[in-house]
């Protein structure tokens, strides 16, 4: 087949995906740039304002507040989900009857919609009559106000997030664990290494590629945290759980500030890219590829 001929054939194969991707990913991407240089409330025509939206953003305390909250969320969520996921992976990384059943149970929240999980946990953590506070009350402890309390609201959204995602972390780490050759561990055991030494010197270093993957993916995903916060607290109380995407949503669809919201989303994109690139740069220092 000639090359020109196969280019025509290839065009037919690629077009069904290229046209939608160009229309609904690439075009909006450029659209975000265009809109971010305008003021647009959808009622009157868009008005060019140059970089004003970006300079406004630099001085917007609500934006910094939501950025700070996003970072707090990640700082609480990430270690928790990693430790729980690692624990689950270590527990299930052996053959026994019922292994795949438990793996399925641990993974069930991951395939469940965030709306179900968020509402379920909102009820469990309901200050009055919720499972946790009722149980605490029975043993004589007055539980906190959870998602209604300024100081506990962040905890109340972090807990279900870790609960929902630990199954995915477990699965990724399980794959990592299963790729570690058994003879390495056996050789170390023959040399008199304790279980803890084997874990510390063999398992953990060889698990670093999987850990790296978890870290990169969770950071990208959780800078965009929205569903659970929108459903459980809507950013409240008093902005205690206000995060960046919540701000983007409010600015565009509540306040009608399309340009400002677009500027915000581009800044979020730059933040995510920066964090991802930093991690890729740093991976040489701690990730061991066998």
């Amino acid at each position, binding site marked *: 087949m000639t090359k020109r001929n196969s280019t025509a054939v290839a065009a037919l194969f690629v077009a069904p995906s290229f046209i939608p991707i160009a229309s609904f990913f690439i075009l909006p991407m450029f*659209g975000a740039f265009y809109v971010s240089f305008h003021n647009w409330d959808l009622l009157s025509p868009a008005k060019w304002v140059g970089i004003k939206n970006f300079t406004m953003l630099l001085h917007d305390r609500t934006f910094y507040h939501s950025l700070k909250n996003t970072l707090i969320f990640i700082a609480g969520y990430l270690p928790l989900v990693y430790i729980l996921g690692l624990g689950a992976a270590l527990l299930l990384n052996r053959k026994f009857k019922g292994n795949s059943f438990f793996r399925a149970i641990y993974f069930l929240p991951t395939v469940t919609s965030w709306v179900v999980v968020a509402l379920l946990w909102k009820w469990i953590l309901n200050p009055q009559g919720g499972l946790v506070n009722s149980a605490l009350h029975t043993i004589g402890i007055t539980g906190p106000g959870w998602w209604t309390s300024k100081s506990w609201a962040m905890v109340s959204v972090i807990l279900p997030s870790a609960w929902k995602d630990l199954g995915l972390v477990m699965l990724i780490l399980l794959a990592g664990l299963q790729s570690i050759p058994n003879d390495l561990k056996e050789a170390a055991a023959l040399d008199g290494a304790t279980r803890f030494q084997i874990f510390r010197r063999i398992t953990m270093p060889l698990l670093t590629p*999987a850990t790296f993957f978890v870290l990169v993916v969770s950071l990208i995903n959780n800078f965009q945290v929205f569903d659970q916060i929108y459903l459980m607290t809507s950013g409240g109380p008093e902005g205690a759980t206000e995060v960046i995407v919540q701000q983007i949503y409010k600015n565009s669809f509540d306040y009608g500030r399309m340009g400002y919201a677009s500027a915000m989303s581009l800044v979020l994109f730059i933040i995510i890219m920066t964090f991802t690139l930093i991690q890729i740069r740093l991976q040489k220092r701690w990730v061991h590829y066998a």
Partner: protein
Amino acid sequence: MPKSFSRIGIYLGGLVMAFPFLWMASSSLKNDVEAFATPPTLWPHKPTTINYHHAFALADFPRLFLNSLIVSVAATLLQVFTSGLAGYAFARIQFRGKNILFLMYLATMMVPLQVIVVPLFLEMRALNLIDSYWALILPSIATAFGVFLIRQAMLTIPKELEEAAVLDGANHWKIFRHVAVPLCGPSFATLGILSFLATWNSFLWPLIAIYSPEKMTLPLGLANLHGEHNADWPLIMAGTTLAVIPVTIVYFILQKQITQSFLTTGIK
């Protein structure tokens, strides 16, 4: 770690993961008094189905299911189709501009939905598609992720198989149809499962694109029910239980494939 310790750990962990679901079902069968009782009752003393009657009266659950199903099935079939074709082209056809085009696909994978959500809304509004199934289906017709996944699978097909087919007079379409697709079954299953789940569970985009109750998907309908009856927890738990049951049944039937699909895409 001794074996018995880890056994206890596994069971405790299983309890923590499963109990909230059981609590959801239990709460949905309680009356308003028992639901808020202290100490909480594990299982209702007097189970009632009243919350389910209310849920069905307040939200059109069959409709919500149907909407979710229509959108998710359409998106999944289209995505499997478009990804298969493009994945084949990128893996098995030599053509001009291939590398640049593929890089462009990969670049869109890094763009989060949140970045394009505002302009996408504006685009759908300009096309007059807001509040329609199309607003939900169109952006899911093709994803770079799907193309990438199938390309990786099709790269592993041995060249000899293709050459044999060419000798038999097969063109690219025939090779695609009779050699490439049958050999990449597991990857297509993976893509199908992942895109179905992604569409079925998606929330932010439907929240923006849909506002009439008769076009809402299940997650949106539940959020709506909660918005209007936010203190009636037994009712809301009835709603979430209804939403979870069919998915959970399918999940346990397809459990191995589903966890496997998260694994293969998670690592590579």
